[in-house]
C-alpha cells in the first residue's frame, strides 16, 4: 500500500502546474475514498443480512453470486428504477434536500479518517472536532425529512431523532476526551500513532460509552427510535421512495461503517497491526504496507458487533433512552475523564505518553 502512495506521489510530481497539481491532489484521494466506502457499503448490506440470518438460524440471501454477494447490487438497481413519489402538500424543497443532507456528511467524514499509513485525504489538526461537527448535520437532515413529509409518523421520527441526538452527543464527546488527553492531540493520525498500547486497554470505560453513544447516533437497534418499524411505520423515511430512499438507506450503512472506523481509530489502533511495536521489524512492515487491510478488518469487526447487537436486543423505550443517557452514561463519562486525567498526570505504566 505504501508503494501505491509513492506511485501516486511520483505521478503527481510529473504534473507541471501547481494549481492543477493541487486540484488533482484534492480530487483523486477524495474519489478513491468515496468509491471505496460506497463499494464497501454494498458488501455491508449483504453481510448484515447474512449475519442477522445466521443469528436467527436462517441462511439469508444466498442465490445471487457467490454466497449471494450481488444481492445488494440487484436491490440498488431495483430501487433506482422505482418511481420517485412526493407526498401531496409536502415541502418539496426540504423534501429533496433532506436525503442529500443525510447522505453527504456521512461520506464527507471519511476525508478525516486515516485508512492507512499516510492514506488520509486531509490531515486536519482538529480532526475529531470537525468529524463530530460534520456528522451531527445528519440529524438536521432527518428532522428535515420528518418535517417536510407532511406525515405525522415522519414528524414523530424526526423529533425523536433530534431528542436522541442531543442527549447522546454529550456523553459521546466526553468519552473521547480521555483519548484526546492521552494522545495530546485532536488529529486522528496523531491519535493512531500514540497508540503503542491500544486505547482500549487504557480507556475500557470510555470505549463502552463511546460505542453505546455512537450506536445511538447512527440510529441502530436498540436505539432506532426514529425509524421504529413497529411504532412509526418507518419513521422519518416513511414517505420516501426510489433513489431518495436509497440515499437514506446507504447513509445508514455508511454511518454504521463510520462508527466502526471511529472505534478503530480512537480505541483499536487504527491502521496499526496488533502489537506492531513489540513484533519489531515485521510488525512495523505489516503496519506500513498493509495498513488499509487491518483498518478494514477491524472496522468490519465492529460492524459485525453492531449487527450482532441488532440480532439480540429489543428497542428501548423513549424514557429509558433518555434516562440511560443522562443517569448512566453522562456520570460514567465524567468519571472516566476524572480517572484518566489523574492517571495521565501521574503518568505511570501504559498511561505514560
Amino acid at each position, binding site marked *: 500500500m505504501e508503494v501505491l502512495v509513492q506511485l501516486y506521489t511520483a505521478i503527481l510530481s510529473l504534473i507541471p502546474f501547481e494549481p492543477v497539481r493541487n486540484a488533482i491532489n484534492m480530487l483523486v484521494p477524495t474519489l478513491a475514498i468515496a468509491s471505496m466506502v460506497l463499494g464497501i457499503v454494498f458488501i455491508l448490506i449483504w453481510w448484515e443480512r447474512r449475519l442477522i440470518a445466521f443469528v436467527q438460524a*436462517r*441462511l439469508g440471501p444466498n442465490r445471487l453470486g457467490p454466497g449471494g454477494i450481488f444481492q445488494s447490487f440487484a436491490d440498488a438497481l431495483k430501487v433506482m428504477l422505482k418511481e420517485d413519489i412526493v407526498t401531496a402538500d409536502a415541502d418539496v424543497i426540504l423534501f429533496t434536500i433532506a436525503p442529500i443532507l443525510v447522505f453527504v456528511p456521512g461520506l464527507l467524514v471519511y476525508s478525516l479518517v486515516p485508512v492507512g499509513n499516510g492514506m488520509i485525504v486531509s490531515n486536519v489538526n482538529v480532526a475529531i472536532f470537525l468529524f463530530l461537527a460534520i456528522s451531527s448535520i445528519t440529524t438536521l437532515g432527518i428532522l428535515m425529512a420528518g418535517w417536510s413529509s407532511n406525515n405525522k409518523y415522519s414528524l414523530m421520527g424526526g423529533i425523536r431523532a433530534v431528542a436522541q441526538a442531543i442527549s447522546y452527543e454529550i456523553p459521546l464527546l466526553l468519552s473521547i476526551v480521555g483519548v484526546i488527553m492521552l494522545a495530546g492531540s485532536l488529529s486522528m493520525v496523531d491519535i493512531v500513532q500514540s497508540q503503542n498500547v491500544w486505547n482500549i486497554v487504557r480507556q475500557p470505560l470510555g470505549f463502552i460509552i463511546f460505542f453505546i453513544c455512537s450506536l445511538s447516533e447512527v440510529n441502530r437497534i436498540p436505539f432506532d427510535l426514529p425509524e421504529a418499524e413497529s411504532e412509526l411505520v418507518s419513521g422519518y423515511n416513511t414517505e420516501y421512495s426510489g433513489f431518495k430512499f436509497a440515499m437514506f438507506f446507504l447513509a445508514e450503512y455508511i454511518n454504521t461503517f463510520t462508527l466502526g472506523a471511529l472505534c478503530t481509530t480512537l480505541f483499536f489502533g487504527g491502521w496499526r497491526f496488533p502489537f506492531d511495536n513489540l513484533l519489531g521489524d515485521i510488525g512495523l512492515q505489516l503496519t506500513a504496507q498493509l495498513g488499509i487491510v487491518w483498518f478494514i478488518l477491524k472496522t468490519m469487526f465492529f460492524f459485525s458487533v453492531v449487527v*450482532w447487537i441488532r440480532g439480540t436486543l429489543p428497542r428501548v423505550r423513549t424514557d429509558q433512552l433518555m434516562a440511560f443517557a443522562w443517569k448512566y452514561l453522562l456520570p460514567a463519562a465524567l468519571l472516566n475523564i476524572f480517572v484518566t486525567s489523574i492517571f495521565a498526570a501521574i503518568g505511570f505504566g501504559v498511561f505514560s505518553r
Partner: protein
Amino acid sequence: MQKVERVSATGKYFKDLFDGIVAIYKGMRLTFIYMFAPKVTEIYPDVKRPLPQRFRGRFAFLYDKEDGHMLCIGCYACVKVCPPQTIVLETHKGEDKKIKVDKYDINIGECISCSNCVEVCPVGALEMTHEFETATFEQSDLFYDMHKLAKYVEKPNMYIPPEPPKIKK
C-alpha cells in the same frame, strides 16, 4: 407475612445497572451460539428433502417393464371410487373377447391425491409417484393421458393394507 425489602435509590441505581449488564450478556451469548448453530432453511430447488416412502405425489399408470403391456384390465373400479370423478376410462371388447383400454385420462388439477384408486385396483396397475412439482403454465397441460402417466415397472404395485390392530377378548 411477606417481608418487603426496602432498597435505597442508590442501591436501585446500581442494581438496575448490574441487572442490565447481566441481561445483555445472557442475550448476546445466546445469539452468538446461534450464529454457528445449524440453519433450519432448506435450499429447496437445489437440495430436496427426502420424501416419506408412502408420499402421494403425481399418479402413474403402470406398464410392464419387460414386454411393455399395460397392467390395467379395464375393470372401472378406480373410476367408481374416485371422489372428484376425474378418471376417464374407455374400453372396448377386442376380437379375443378381452377388454382393451382405449383411453385413460386424468386431470391432475382435479385429482386430490387420495390414493383410493391405487388401493382399490385389483391388479396393482396404478401408483402414486414421488413427483410433486406438477405446476404448469397452461391449464391444458394438466390433462394427462395414459402415455403421459406411463411408468414402466417390474412388478405390479399391489396395495398391502396395514394389519388391523388386534382386539383383546
